[in-house]
């Protein structure tokens, strides 16, 4: 698949920093999942995190989204140091994510799933909702309009009212992306958005990711195993191995880095 001309990698370094991770170390008992890693994510870029299985990529994403609290290091978001927060508080800062194994609400329709994604925009209390007519209904309709734009954008209009549990895998991935997008996040984290997809589905998903980045200007950090996809999509790449950072830079730079080739790309070097 050919690279669509997104915001070019050369533009990235000049942009302001959205999130900065400083010297993050995360331990589970005696195991160090992440060892002293620092990198930044700039506004509007697509940042990929790659590495072999067990390298600590998902742990890194969990640190960013507030599931894990690192023993050492600091997380800076939009120029401010972020204290230790619960995941729902992180969501309110404007960080949304998808999961490696789809985590949708199976008993609810696609529409309700995506509407739930807008929870951070819904302010009406339980009494207003019990009455329904008036403020709660106005809020519901306003948010429904926003959600319908995302449903149109991701081309899932047909399955709007279908219970999520009945959908095939590829569509579920798309609905999960829709739910994350519904929050209108400043930073979108995608944990293996293309895992288990065929080539066509991967192309679709790549297109959606680039379009999201392009049209909404959403900053995206993603974990992906398909090297072709990573090299085509991302502006900059972080490479991890055994919890350490072994490479950081544009796809071209990373591809040329001998340590990365050694650890991950698996190309024999002489």
């Amino acid at each position, binding site marked *: 698949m050919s690279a669509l001309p997104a915001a070019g990698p050369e533009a990235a370094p000049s942009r302001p920093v959205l999130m900065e991770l400083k010297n993050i170390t995360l331990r589970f008992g005696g195991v160090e999942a992440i060892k002293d890693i620092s990198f930044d994510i700039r506004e509007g870029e697509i940042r990929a995190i790659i590495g072999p299985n067990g390298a600590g990529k998902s742990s890194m994403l969990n640190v960013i989204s507030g599931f894990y609290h690192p023993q050492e290091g600091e997380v800076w978001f939009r120029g401010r140091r972020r204290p230790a927060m619960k995941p*729902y508080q992180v*969501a309110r800062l404007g960080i*949304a994510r998808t999961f490696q194994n789809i*985590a*949708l609400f199976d008993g*609810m329709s696609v529409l*309700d799933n995506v509407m739930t994604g807008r929870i951070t925009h819904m302010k009406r209390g339980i009494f207003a909702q019990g009455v329904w007519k008036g403020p709660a209904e106005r809020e519901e309709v306003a948010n429904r309009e926003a959600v319908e734009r995302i449903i149109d954008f991701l081309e899932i209009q047909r399955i709007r009212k279908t219970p999520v549990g009945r959908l095939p895998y590829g569509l579920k991935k798309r609905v999960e992306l829709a739910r994350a997008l519904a929050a209108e996040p400043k930073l979108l984290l995608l944990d293996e958005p293309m895992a288990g997809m065929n080539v066509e589905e991967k192309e679709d998903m790549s297109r959606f990711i680039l379009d999201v980045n392009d049209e909404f200007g959403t900053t995206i950090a993603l974990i992906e195993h398909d090297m072709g996809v990573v090299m085509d999509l991302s502006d900059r790449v972080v490479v991890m191995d055994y919890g350490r950072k072994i490479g950081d830079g544009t796809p071209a730079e990373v591809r040329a880095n001998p340590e990365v080739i050694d650890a991950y790309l698996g190309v024999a070097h002489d």
Partner: protein
Amino acid sequence: MIYREAGDFKTNYVSDGQTFPLRFDRWAYGLLLAVAFLVIPFVIDDYWANAVFVPFLIYAIAAIGLNILTGYCGQVSLGTGGFMAVGAYAAYKLMTAFPDVPFPVHVVLAGGITAAVGVLFGLPSLRIKGFYLAVATLAAQFFLVWLFNKVPWFYNYSASGQISAPTREVFGWAVTGPSATPAASYLICLIFLTVLALIARNLTRGTTGRTWMAIRDMDIAAEIIGVNPLTAKLSAFAVSSFFIGVAGALFFAVYLGAVEVGSAFGIQKSFLVLFMIIIGGLGSIFGSFAGAAFLVLLPVLLKAIGVDMLGWPTDIVAHIQLVIVGALIILFLVLEPHGLAQLWRVTKEKLRLWPFPY
């Protein structure tokens, strides 16, 4: 093709999100409400009120309450009887302490007190789930019944240990006490049920309901998109307990009139309401109605057939009823976990195409 949705188009989001999206449904439910409010009160007699309508209306409120907690938010509760007792005793204390305040206000306040108690006993749900939470709510059930038995202040130091409802009037009509007419008892329960069912529907179709269902379906994902599990679970406990408290207050004051806590609000009551929502359908307001109707009507029907028509002894019929309910619970859990509500949904889908197979 009586029942159809073809041609019933929606042109804005308000009409797409309404309670009954199909015109046919709106007419049918409107007619049902009209009959319930304008016809039944004039023809109802003592037997129909006490055996069928009043218990059905009250159990429907309790079933909606439990369905909010268990069906929508996924928190299993076996404390329904205990929470109904809280509503009943709160209503009793309020009615005797402030005789001049209108009865409906007492019922709402009793619901509020039950909501507070429900939140208190809902706190363990932040730490434990499923089976273990069920056991924790079971503790609430036994503790509350024990409390109302042991502390005489709750039953105003009456010699029998029972509480009995004094006569209270609404617009000059006695709704509690021995002089209440069947029509008055029926109407006050019907008004409470109608208002509460509307509120339940509004809550479950909006943000609150979505946060509850999100917690039920996948609590980790709910948290990651910004649902605070504390407020989501505790609000479910509060709303659910409010409904159950109102049901308890009505059960005591309007239906029974006099109550001994152990026999009226024991563990059997918790299971009865739980069976109602399992048979009726978890996560469905309609299912709460269907389940309540089913389990209220079943004993009446069996008695009519077994005792009155076939002449069997009463105790045999009572035992047969237990067997049938038990068998039905197993059947529903195995064959149709979504209960009568799902059967009704399937029927409607078939009706849309009838008489054509596709």
